[in-house]
């Protein structure tokens, strides 16, 4: 029973970790409140859906397409909006409210364009959903694939941020933007790359979500919320914290709902969220005091 719950927690947690990782990159490097993040999950899910419905393309093969598409959209948004806006003092002065509104705009555009083109109906497909039993628990193949692929991406990103020069540059930018520019890190280029990676990972997470859940143009918002909860738990701008935070939230949610009941799910999640924000705003895993 509890092993079964743990597996369910892993499925949820690994997707949360991926979505939150992307959000944290965009927040961390440029301090943008990206409320459109869930819409990129939605786009990834639609790519996988159309791939399998039209050309019976396996979702895992559709994933690169989804990543390129969402990363490309990210680059487009960066070039058309933020490259210019970040140079305007009036924009940067109120960056929270301004970035929130820009992304709110992006979010309603993406939702409604998708609804206009593909209708607002719920869609889904069956993909490898035969059960596999092991260790007293059973799980459909597609959920095992979610855990494995999401886990691989998480491990890859841990190595990327610890070892590669690009990963280190992104981390430097998150910690001290001005100092990073002073030591010769090309800030604008790293901003762009973080945008692409952040949205690409969201698109990839969307492919995984579509394998196990139904999709619709308005499915993104709950993912945005969950991702914000996760990066608060893990610490704003703390890349590894968001991975751990995602898993932790998956565990909390799954076990909490199992012990109390589904109607308390939202209260519990927001309760944790507010508790962490008030008591430890730098996140559970962050060192020292938060920059406010």
């Amino acid at each position, binding site marked *: 029973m509890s092993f079964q719950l743990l597996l369910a927690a892993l499925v949820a947690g690994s997707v949360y970790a991926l979505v939150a990782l992307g959000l944290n990159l965009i927040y961390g490097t440029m301090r943008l409140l990206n409320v459109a993040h869930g819409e990129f999950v939605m786009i990834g899910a639609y790519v996988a859906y159309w791939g399998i419905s039209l050309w019976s393309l396996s979702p895992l093969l559709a994933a690169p397409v989804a990543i390129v598409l969402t990363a490309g959209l990210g680059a487009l948004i960066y070039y058309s909006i933020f490259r210019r806006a970040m140079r305007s003092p*009036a924009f940067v002065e109120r960056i929270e409210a301004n970035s929130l509104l820009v992304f709110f705009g992006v979010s309603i555009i993406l939702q409604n364009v998708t609804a206009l083109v593909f209708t607002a109906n719920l869609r889904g497909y069956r993909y490898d959903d035969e059960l596999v039993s092991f260790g007293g628990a059973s799980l459909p193949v597609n959920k095992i694939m979610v855990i494995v692929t999401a886990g691989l991406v998480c491990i890859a990103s841990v190595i990327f941020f610890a070892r590669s020069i690009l990963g280190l540059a992104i981390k430097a930018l998150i910690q001290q933007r001005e100092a990073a520019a002073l030591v010769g890190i090309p800030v604008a280029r790293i901003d762009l790359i973080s945008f692409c990676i952040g949205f690409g990972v969201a698109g990839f997470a969307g492919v995984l979500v579509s394998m196990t859940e139904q999709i619709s143009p308005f499915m993104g918002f709950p993912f945005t919320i969950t991702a914000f909860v996760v990066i608060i738990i893990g610490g704003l701008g703390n890349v590894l914290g968001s991975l751990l935070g995602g898993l932790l939230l998956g565990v909390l949610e799954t076990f909490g709902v199992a012990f109390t009941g589904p109607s308390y799910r939202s209260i519990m999640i927001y309760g944790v969220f507010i508790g962490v924000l008030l008591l430890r705003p730098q996140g559970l895993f962050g060192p020292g005091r*938060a920059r406010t």
Partner: protein
Amino acid sequence: MNRELGVSLGGVTLAAVAAATLPFIGNDYFVGIGFTLLTWIALTEAWMLISGMAGYVSLGHVAFVGIGAYVAALSWQVLPVWGILLTAGIAAGTLALLVGYPCLRVRGPYFVILTFGLSELLKFVVVNIESALVVSGRVLFGAPEIQNLFYMMLGLAWVSLSVALIVRRSRFGAGLRAIRENEEAAETIGIAASWFKLAAFALSAIVPGMVGALIAMRISYFEPLDFFSPRTSLLIVTMAVVGGSDKPLGPLLGVVFLVLLQELLWANLPQLYMIIVGVLLIGVVVWIPEGIFGGLQRLTARGTR
């Protein structure tokens, strides 16, 4: 009271008197649009107190609207209408005092996310209370006519705008602006920042609470998921920023612009309307970061030079 403040207060009062003639010349449809316009004016001007003047951007103001509406639904036909409004305002103000003390210690993006989270938490608490009581939606029988509600909302919008104008000109408002520019420096010169913020937050909650009660009477129905919808909080921020500038007239323009656009497009092309709002939102924030009002001011300044 200085002369400029007197002039603007007089102007607002004159405009309110002019608006009061609407029920005599327009049919229920126009009175309804007027009610919606006044609703958003009251909400955004109240929001400006904490978010425009003190720079603490609240993304949770729907919590006050929702609590006011809930009070109205609970005390309907128990209290008279004025008693409901009073209780709703007090409830919202008390809520702001309770959550404001811990919340206003965090700043910037943390405050934005925290207020959002709190309003969502409150929403689900109310949802759970209602389902524990086995109530699914409360109907308010025999609510006042739209004409009467219109006058009450007009009163709230007038109060909200006047308070914004008065606070802006007062020492209190100067203190809030100092907090927005640099909180440490403000404290150094002797501004009791935490009290100023708490007072502004509570003040900015009272009118939304009363607005919530009036909306509940207008719809004559209360359902927590509608009344605590995060969309309301986002729309308040949108209208204030699209209108722009920290002058009380800015948000007014944003409200008129967005509400009229909604009336024109919503009924026929809801998805297209949302797409246009999205494009406009991005356009205004990126190209005229000072908002429509600030942009107009810049244009007129250029014209007279």
